[in-house]
């Protein structure tokens, strides 16, 4: 090549650091991969924690209810339905609504009927969770109807949760009866997203019509309901009112928002029992790996470091070359890890949430970006600190010995 191809350059140590990373790409990639694993796990863990928290906040607020009363044997199933939308069907005497409404502290009660059905589409079958709500007393779906549609539902109309894969105006068939989608609810991150809402009266008609229209008839015992959503006069008295309901209305379970949040927290801890050890164990591995790696690199490049010192590098500058390489490996590994963690979570999201019964709503962009930046910077810092001792050891060596050590 001729000199005219050499464009003017400024020589900085950053250039040396960058090219040194490429010197042994296999080794650089291996070290970075360790960082990728740790940072991906850490970022995914943070993302899940933030998303679960946000879903609880939004979902419970959207539910509108302070308490939920279900049959005694249905508490666990109700929790699963509420959190992830797993279809359930259980029933209790509808007269219980009056008894619950009479409990001191209860302001409003709205019954719901749960139906588990199959929905056929061109490609495949799947279970759908139907919730029949009382048009007169509902405070979960009705506010959304008032705001978005400005009217009540027609007898053959349904509202779908945000994750149900149909469009407004589409037809759906349940137990032989046809319905039209009138609208889609906003995302909550909880079971409502997987649910189809329709008036309770429509559920009764489905049951009746299914005797002749459906392959398998729907049977709902007369006068039975699945759950009571309860609004309180004083929200802060939720636990006390729940106790009263349990005492005054036997045969029921009462779910509070706090209890749901605590149960979700326990499930989240179940997930974190493997995420945290992987992340913290991984941090230990990264520290040891970088310590060992840069001890080896420092020994290999003792002569080179000695030469840099001979050219005028201070101890700090000479050590900075090695530490700079470690920091860059950490930053690149961290960045790749955040991307891998995000991609990995997106790919396995349903599996994770379903397996651990967790609600999830994507945190806001700012929260995700901040978490990502923190993980990337943390990775760079961790890698740099791990390499600091071997780098300083070799930089502090008298240049004469460093140069001649490399010659042996």
């Amino acid at each position, binding site marked *: 090549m001729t*000199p005219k191809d*050499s464009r003017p*350059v*400024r*020589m900085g140590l950053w250039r040396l650091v960058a090219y040194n990373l490429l*010197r042994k790409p296999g080794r650089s990639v291996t070290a970075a991969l360790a960082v990728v694993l740790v940072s991906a796990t850490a970022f995914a863990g943070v993302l899940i924690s933030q998303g679960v928290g946000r879903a609880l906040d939004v979902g419970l607020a959207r539910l509108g209810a302070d308490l939920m009363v279900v049959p005694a044997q249905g508490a666990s199933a109700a929790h699963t339905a509420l959190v992830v939308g797993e279809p359930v069907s259980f029933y209790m005497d509808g007269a219980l609504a009056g008894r619950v409404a009479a409990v001191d502290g209860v302001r409003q009660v709205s019954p719901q009927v749960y139906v588990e059905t199959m929905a056929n589409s061109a490609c495949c079958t799947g279970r759908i969770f139907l919730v029949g709500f009382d048009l007169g007393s509902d405070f979960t779906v009705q506010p959304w109807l008032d705001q978005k549609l400005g009217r009540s539902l027609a007898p053959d109309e349904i509202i779908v949760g945000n994750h149900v894969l149909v469009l407004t105006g589409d037809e759906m068939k349940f137990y032989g009866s046809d319905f039209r989608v009138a609208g889609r609810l906003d995302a909550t991150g909880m079971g409502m997203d997987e649910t189809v809402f329709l008036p309770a009266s429509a559920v009764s008609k489905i049951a009746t019509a299914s005797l002749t229209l459906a392959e398998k008839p729907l049977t709902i015992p007369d006068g039975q309901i699945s759950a009571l959503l309860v609004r309180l006069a004083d929200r802060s008295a939720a636990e006390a009112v729940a106790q009263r309901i349990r005492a005054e209305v036997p045969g029921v379970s009462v779910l509070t928002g706090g209890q749901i949040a605590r149960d979700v927290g326990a499930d989240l801890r179940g997930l974190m029992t493997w995420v945290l050890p992987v992340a913290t164990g991984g941090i230990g591995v990264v520290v040891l790996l970088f310590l060992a790696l840069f001890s080896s690199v420092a020994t290999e490049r003792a002569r080179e470091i000695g030469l840099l*010192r001979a050219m*005028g590098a201070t101890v700090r500058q000479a050590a900075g070359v090695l530490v700079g390489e470690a920091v860059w490996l950490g930053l690149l590994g961290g960045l790749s890890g955040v991307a891998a963690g995000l991609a990995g979570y997106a790919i396995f999201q349903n599996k994770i949430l379903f397996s651990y019964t967790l609600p999830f709503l994507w945190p806001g962009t700012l929260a995700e970006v901040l978490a990502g930046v923190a993980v990337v910077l943390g990775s760079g810092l961790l890698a740099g600190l791990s390499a600091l001792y071997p780098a300083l050891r070799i930089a502090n060596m008298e240049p*004469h010995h460093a140069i001649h050590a490399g010659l042996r």
Partner: protein
Amino acid sequence: MIELVDVSKRYSSGDQTVDALSGFSDHIEPGEFVVITGRSGAGKSTLLSLVGGLIRPDSGRVLVQGKDLWALNDAQRSLLRCETIGFVFQFASLIPTLTVLENVMLPTAFLPGGDGKGHERALHLLERVALKEQAVRLPWQLSGGQQKRVAVARALLNQPAVLLADEPTADLDEATEGEIVELFAGLNRQGTTILLATHNTDLAARASRHLVLTGGRVTRAS
């Protein structure tokens, strides 16, 4: 220019100790070309390293341009090396991942505030050592002699007053050795103070002064 006052350096390894330099004193004037010869282990490399501040003496003082090297802190001593002293070692010592031009320019990375004219000077130096055409090549693409010439160019980048060369012609053929020595002679004619350590006593003929070291002491000077 350079003053060594009763300098001693001893190396210890396990039970064994070696006096690399014992009570060495000398004064080197600006513009001198001093050739230091002696057998392996005579203390030649140690002497050059002491002058360059690459190793601390056990006793005595080393002064460069009137400054006691070991009275300075690390940053001051490094700056003095960067601005005043150039090193050429026995091995080519080029960074394998940097081009020839980047290797020559490397000392500018240690100048406070950088050096805007480093690129220009580096090209000029490469032209002087007849390697300007190789500026964008990597070290492995050059011969041993060419790599040594690049090392010389690098040592001269910051226009040092002193050039310390430790066995610069080792492993080179006669013709290339002659080129390197002629280069040094030319630099000396332009005023650079040169200390050159070598096994080759014939090079002493090009010097203004010849020191022979044996067991860390000067046994002959001319």
